[in-house]
């Protein structure tokens, strides 16, 4: 097995070739904040919270989609990174309509968690207040596009773990949104198996069980990793 050795925040770490900087940081016990990353599905580098600095390059690298290379010297907690991470979270809040106090995920929300983690007590950017809708056409679930942060965890989990590929991303730039089927009401998409994996995968209150009230939604971020391991390694307990 080919191995790369690198340094992360002063810690030397050896990691299997092909693994990412995020994998290496995890191995070294160095915490890096993430939102779009989820164990069990492939990474896309959508949220840019996991940016790190690598000596010798002026670019900030997303740790989840950058391969760990031999001899890399990585810093994960510099002032510059902390500043950009806070800015990223502020921009996510300003971009959608995240009214925490009336959200099903209030208290169980990964966006709230990272806001606390990066020390965001207010947004320096003006809120956009886009006009977005909700889709309650499914008999069990609902999607509130106001709370979507375009992490695409639902898209990936539905495609890669459930194999249904109900979700996709429609439109461009600030008009991007998650579409069901061919931009149909969710309830009319025959491919949906109503498995609820997208509900578990959603980091915010964007996808939820109908009938859940404020503060009731609890995501299960580890479920997809469990399912993937269960299938690949026949480990059916966690």
């Amino acid at each position, binding site marked *: 097995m080919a191995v790369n050795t690198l340094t992360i925040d002063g810690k030397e770490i050896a990691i299997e070739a092909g693994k990412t900087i995020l994998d290496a940081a995890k191995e070294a016990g160095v915490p890096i904040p993430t939102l779009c990353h989820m164990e069990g599905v492939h990474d896309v580098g959508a949220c840019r919270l996991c940016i790190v600095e690598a000596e010798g390059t002026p670019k900030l690298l997303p740790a989840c989609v950058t391969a760990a290379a031999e001899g890399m010297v990585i810093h994960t907690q510099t002032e510059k990174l902390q500043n950009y991470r806070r800015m990223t979270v502020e921009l996510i*809040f300003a971009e959608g*309509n*995240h*009214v*925490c*106090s*009336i*959200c099903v995920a*209030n*208290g169980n*929300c990964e966006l*709230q968690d990272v*806001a*606390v983690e990066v*020390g*965001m*007590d*207010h*947004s320096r950017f*003006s*809120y956009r*207040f*886009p*006009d*977005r809708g909700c889709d309650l056409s499914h008999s069990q679930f609902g999607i509130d596009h*106001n709370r979507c942060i375009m992490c695409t965890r639902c898209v990936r989990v539905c495609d890669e773990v459930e194999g249904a590929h109900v979700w996709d991303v429609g439109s461009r730039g600030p008009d991007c949104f998650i579409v069901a089927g061919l931009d149909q009401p969710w309830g009319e998409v025959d491919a949906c198996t109503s498995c609820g994996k997208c509900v578990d995968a959603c980091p915010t209150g964007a996808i939820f069980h109908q009938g859940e009230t404020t503060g009731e939604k609890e995501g299960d971020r580890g479920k997809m990793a469990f399912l993937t391991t269960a299938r690949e390694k026949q480990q059916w307990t966690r």
Partner: protein
Amino acid sequence: MDKIKFATVWLAGCSGCHMSFLDLDEFLIDLAGLVDVVFSPVGTDLKEYPEGVDVCLVEGAIANEENLELALEIRRKTKTLISFGDCAVTANVPAMRNMMGNKTAEPVLERGYIELADENPHFPNAPGIVPELLDRVLPVHEVIPIDIFMPGCPPSADRIRATLEPLLQGKTPEMVGREMIKFG
């Protein structure tokens, strides 16, 4: 040492932050010994915001002309302004009308006073008495500079106390961690 001149202000909010302030319970008695409450909807019956206020908690977003005027006035007359709760910090629920576009006062009034009226539908009109709604609802810091942000809907009494106690000792509170800055 002179007592600290302390004020609280209620703009476009539900008063929940002030209710949470009253949840300080017995600490309110300690607080009363340390501060002069010079302006507050729950502590005084004064209509004019006084000069030379040391610390002021501002609840609520900026939604109408009165909110806007008062915000500018309290900034001129206050040393340390604290954005008190999610409506002040993010504009929160009052700002949900902003999703209707750039000029949201009219459709909101239309819905409230015409469409839902059981009898005598008409817009409120009392110039100089009933303040006009602004086109958009804004967080307080988009209108005036803010010194300390205390999110929460509402901030718990513990969070309010942890913010005020250092200020009373002339220190700056550290607004970090889940206990101090979680929204909602």
